[in-house]
């Protein structure tokens, strides 16, 4: 479960995120939409502990990320907007590194690494150094790393950027399956058709404020209307 309570982030005189509140229940697939510079990445960075909010609090599974950061961080996986890796390490080494940071035992980690190499089909390049990877390869390694420790919350910033159609399908299917298994997903993206396909709930942010929240379920589907709504609201 994710909860944002009156979260504000200011950079000098600029208010990037302005008093937003959200509550995402366990097992929900939440889409976070907004035009460029609306405050999506800033919000995500506050949720993951990379930014400290100027006001308000971010709770992950009931733990305030800035007060009780370790239990909070143990319970989520994070995929940043840019899949930066250590250039001199191989993908496999990066996965072991992240697993170690999450204090995973070596046997469990080994099993999990092999499993994710299969899931994200990274076996052909996982033992090459990251300096040789394309954007899509990096993205798949980062997604694998985020799922290593079986988190119950996944926070993803633009997960499909740079992925070829086959890899994108792979990621979408994996995310769908994981949500069915109870994973809570908070996803920021510009790809509205992905949101329509995957998300149960969305929020649109503009100039740091949430301007609309919508739910998608069996009774109410977006049916291709999300783009019109988005363009109307953000013009």
């Amino acid at each position: 479960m994710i909860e944002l309570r009156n979260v504000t982030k200011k950079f000098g005189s600029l208010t990037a995120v302005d008093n937003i509140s959200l509550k995402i229940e366990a097992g929900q697939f939440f889409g976070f939409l907004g035009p460029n510079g609306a405050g999506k990445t800033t919000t995500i960075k506050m949720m993951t502990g990379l930014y400290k909010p100027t006001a308000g609090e971010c709770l992950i599974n009931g733990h305030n990320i800035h007060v009780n950061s370790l239990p909070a961080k143990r319970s989520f996986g994070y995929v940043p907007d840019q899949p930066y890796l250590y250039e001199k390490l191989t993908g496999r080494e990066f996965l072991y590194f992240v697993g170690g940071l999450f204090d995973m035992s070596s046997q469990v980690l080994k099993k999990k690494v092999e499993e994710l190499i299969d899931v994200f089909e990274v076996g052909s390049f996982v033992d090459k150094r990251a300096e040789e990877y394309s954007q899509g390869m990096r993205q798949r390694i980062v997604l694998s790393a985020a799922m290593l420790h079986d988190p119950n919350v996944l926070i993803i910033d633009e997960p499909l950027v740079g992925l070829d159609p086959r890899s994108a399908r792979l990621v979408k299917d994996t995310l769908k399956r994981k949500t069915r298994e109870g994973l809570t997903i908070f996803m920021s993206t510009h790809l509205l058709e992905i949101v329509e396909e995957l998300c149960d709930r969305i929020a649109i942010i503009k100039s740091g404020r949430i301007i609309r929240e919508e739910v998608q379920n069996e009774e109410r589907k977006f049916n291709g209307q999300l783009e019109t709504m988005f363009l109307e609201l953000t013009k």
Partner: protein
Amino acid sequence: MRELLLVLNLKSASILKSLFRQDSQSLFKMLASVLVFGGFALGMFFLARGVTTYLLQTAHIGLFLFHRFLSMLLYVFFITVNVGNIIVCYATLYRSQEVGFLMSLPISHAKIFLIKFVDNFFYSSSTLALIGFAILLGYGSYFHLPWYFYFFSVFFVFLPFMLIAGVIAVVTLMGLISVASRIGIRWLLGIVATGYVSVIYLYFKTTNPVQLVGEVMKHYPDVNTYFGYLDPPLVQYLPNHWVTEFLYWSVNGNFERAIPYFFLLFLTMAGLVVTAGLLARKYYYRTWLASSDLQAMRGSKSSSFHLTVLEFGAESSIWKKLTRSPQTEVLFKRDFWMFFRDPSQWLHLVLMALLIVIFLVSVGTLELHLIQPFMRAVSFLVVFLFNGFLIASIALRFVFPAVSLESDCFWAVRSSPLELRKLYFHKLRFAFALTCIVAEVLVLGSMTFVGNDGFLLGIAAVCGICVALALTSLHLGAGSYFAMFKEKNPIRVASSHGASLTFLGSMVYLSGVVLILIVPLHEYFESFVFSDDSARSWLYLPVAVVALFSLLISVTSTSVGLNAIKRDF
């Protein structure tokens, strides 16, 4: 020309903007910079004036010999600027992303080369230039030279001198990359390192300072005579010789003989710049492509070096004995592999180790046999100071960039359940272990060679640990405060503005240690003259003060560093 001016304008605007940002943090950084750089320049000024006064008025070595020593110093300075430019040029002209972007624009390769060279020259040589100018001022003030002498010397003699070193560096680099694409980078680096060591050795072998002093001193007290015939013919073609000749004739008031050297310097510089431009027109793009190929080839080679105990995911009982935390284990493994897979890191380490060996061997050949207490104290402190300088250089190169090397990938650490405090102390622990070992090797090696007793050796060893602790903490803390996560090249991080500031700060710290120790050391050596048995007690208190001073620096720096590492990423 238009696009050249446009890019240079944009670059200067961005530098000015970053220098004069209006937030309080930037203002503080700027004030701190002015204070430390200003203080350091002032220190160098007084040191230069003091040394000039001592050598000419107390030691009576005469103007000719004094200027020949100056020439030797300038030679070392020339090589330093040259090597510094080669190292930084590789990063700015061949590995920077900006070059990749500029190459995609309709700008000629020679212009890109020029833009990046100017950028690189001022970036890598500004601190050295500051040191040079301060020394020049100190030197000139002894001779009561007029203001226009400084203006002329700085802009028309000293700057061309540095530019010659810089241009030679960049032309050499183009040649090196061409050769590297044929014989491989490892062989080439070995040849280059041997070449530079040989050049320095041959210079001092040719100039033979000991023989020169002997020859000149035969004419004592007429040591101010011009003994130009003693100069080896080869030396007369070196820019450091031209600078000293210009200075020698200027302080003698003989401008007619000084001016030709200015022309020589200026024309050589202009000629070299034009040659570099022509060579760049033909070879810069080619070598840029060759360098990209070299990098790609290096990346595609799987490493033949394996060490099971350091492999990720390998079961090893050693780690279970060493630490129960997988976090510490993976942090160590990551740092190890990232260090040894980056040639710029381990090669620099090898060079530094070589420098230490050269220093220890040089100190070993010294036969001081000093009796006068003050001179014994000074010799002890000079060697100690040089040890400190070496430790500071190692800390600057390897400890300062440690936090920046977390790079853009810091997100992985920051979003994991790893306490940043733990990460920071992990870095501090390993960095301190490295500098402490180096400090003790240096102290025990150099102090044994200069013939100090066991008690003094112990004192030096304790002070060595204090210095290692303070300098490691200072560089790590400042490296965290001035962290450059976007910069992938550790050399550029270690030659950034913040790094220079930190290095100067460490010089101030070392001066403080020397100030604390000088009088008690003098008393200690004096006590041998008067056979005073209570001599040792003279040193306990100052060493305790050094320890406290170092601890204070360490705690303050660590606190600053810890706060900085927790900043928004």
